[in-house]
Structure formats: C-alpha cells, structure tokens
C-alpha cells in the first residue's frame, strides 16, 4: 500500500469516527435540554416565550461541540495537509 492509499483511507475513516462520536454527546445533551424546556413550558405556559428563547441559545451552544467535530471531519476530507505533503514527496 503506498502513502496515498494509507492517507486516503485513514482520512475517511477518521472523519466518519469523528462525526459519529462527536455528535453523540451533543445529541444527548440537546435532547435533555429540549425535554427539560418542554416540561418547563408545560408547567408555566405564561413564560413559554422566554423559556423558548433561552432554550434556543442553549441548543446553539450545545451544538457547537458537534460542529467542531464536523469542521475537523471536513478538514480531514477536503483540506488534509498530509495529502499535499505526500504529493510533494513523490
């Protein structure tokens, strides 16, 4: 196996694993946040608009961790620095 095949295979595998594990925690956290917000909205319907806006902000913050994983996956797939290094070596 030459270096191109190794780098390509490891990049794709790494990106898939990165997305899978990286989105897991974020998804669990977002689910708990949404559940708690819905419970709070059901208990206090008057405060629903405030709870909703706060929930959106919290969801956006939780989503950031998954987006970091996404960026790393994109970096591994499309802007891999070792790929150019392997091309320059041959």
């Amino acid at each position, binding site marked *: 196996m030459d270096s191109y095949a190794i780098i390509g295979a490891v990049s794709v595998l790494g990106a898939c694993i990165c997305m899978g594990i990286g989105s897991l925690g974020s998804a669990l956290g977002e689910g708990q946040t949404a559940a708690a917000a819905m419970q709070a909205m059901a208990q206090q319907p008057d405060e629903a608009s*405030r709870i909703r*806006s*706060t929930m*959106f*902000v919290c969801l*956006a*913050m939780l*989503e*950031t961790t998954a*987006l*970091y994983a*996404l*960026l790393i996956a*994109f*970096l591994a797939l*499309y*802007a891999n620095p070792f790929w150019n290094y392997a091309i320059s070596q041959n």
Partner: protein
Amino acid sequence: MVFKVDFSKWWDIPTTDKQIGLESYDSINLISWGDFAINVTIFNSWLVIALIVLFSILVTRNLKYEKDVSKCQIMLETLVLWLQKEAKDTSSAKNNQYLGMALGLFCFIMVANLLTFIPWFRPPTASLSTTMALATVVFFAIPYFAIKNAGVKGYLKKFIEPMPLMLPLNIFSEIFSVLAMGLRLFGNMLSGVMFAMILSAFIPFVAPLLMQSLGLLTGSIQAYIFALLAVVYSSSVKEYDEQSEII
C-alpha cells in the same frame, strides 16, 4: 495589471467533483485587477447589503400612520418591534442600545441564509471570512458596551470576577466564545450547502428540495441565535447596582 471581469463562475451551480471544500468560496474571483480581486463571497455580501438597504429605503420613503399602511411597512415594524423586545428581555437593559447591533446582524444573516433557495447563490455566511468578520464586530462590541455601561473599571473587573486566579481562563473564554459564534454559523451553513450538494449528486431534484427547506429553517434559527448571543455577550457587564442575571 490586467483588469478582468468574469461573471460566468457566478452562474455555475456547484457540483460535487469540483468547487467543494473549505476554501472554494473565496477562491472564485469575479473581478480581478492585479493582486486586487473581488471574489464570490464579497460580491454576494454586497448583493445582500444592497437588497436590505434598497428595500428599507423604498419602504420607509412614504411611511403611513394608522391607515393605508403598506404590507412591507407592517413587516419591517413587526421585525423591529420583535427584536427590540427580544433584546430588551435578554439583556434586561432599560434603553434600546443593543437594538442597532442585533438588527444589523439579524437582517444580514437572515437575508443571506434565506437566499440559499436560489440554486446558484452561494451564501456569504458559508464562508469562514464572512462569519469571522461578523464575530469580530461582536468581539469589539463587548468592550464598547461594557465601558459605556460600567466604565473601564467595571469592564476590567469582569476578568477577575470570582477571584484573580481566574484571569487567564476569563480571557480565554472571552476570545473563544466569540470564535465559537463565527464557527457555529459557518459550520451550520457549510453543512447545509454541502449536504445539499452531495445529495443532489445521488438523488437530483427530490432530496435537495427537502434538505434546502430544512436549511431555510436552520438558517433563520442561526440568524436569531447569532443576534441573540451578540446581545447576551455584550450585556454580560452591567451597571453596579443592577443584579446580574445568568442565562
């Protein structure tokens, strides 16, 4: 120095085999003059800004009161009043000092994200340079509003808030919270655009439609979140007598 204008790339619908990747948006030059070049991101940002400004000028040219109110005027009034209420509720400020920043960020990101339903329009928010520029605005808005509200001493006091040992952590969180805002918007828009591109290679006409309608929802939520987070971070330092509220 050759002056070159080439708008044929603007009409190119992005496909999977080329123009994909992190740098692709900034590398397509429409107008180039020596080293100076205007790429798709800058041109589309100007397009969005021109759309917003032209629409606002046309609507506010003849404002009516109580009767014969046009639909566009009602739309703009609803937008301004809603965002005013949101900014006031979130920042718990007495005046409307955050409204300008929130409205500007919200309108720009909202229009840029909603224009993705035009197939060959590359949203400027899916480029890291645009989102980082917007995040830089927020980065400088935080000390501006803090010094305006609480003075220089009140602003610097924020960094040693629980205890002076936390100073490096506070500085890091100051930088990274703003950095995360830019990355979040970029990641959301880029993932939407790339997902639609990849799907259109497998199942053209049907699957991208569903993904793009989901992208409209994500885009409007991201615009709301960006404006709201800018208000939240800017209002993190309040006046002395006011009890701070944790969100």
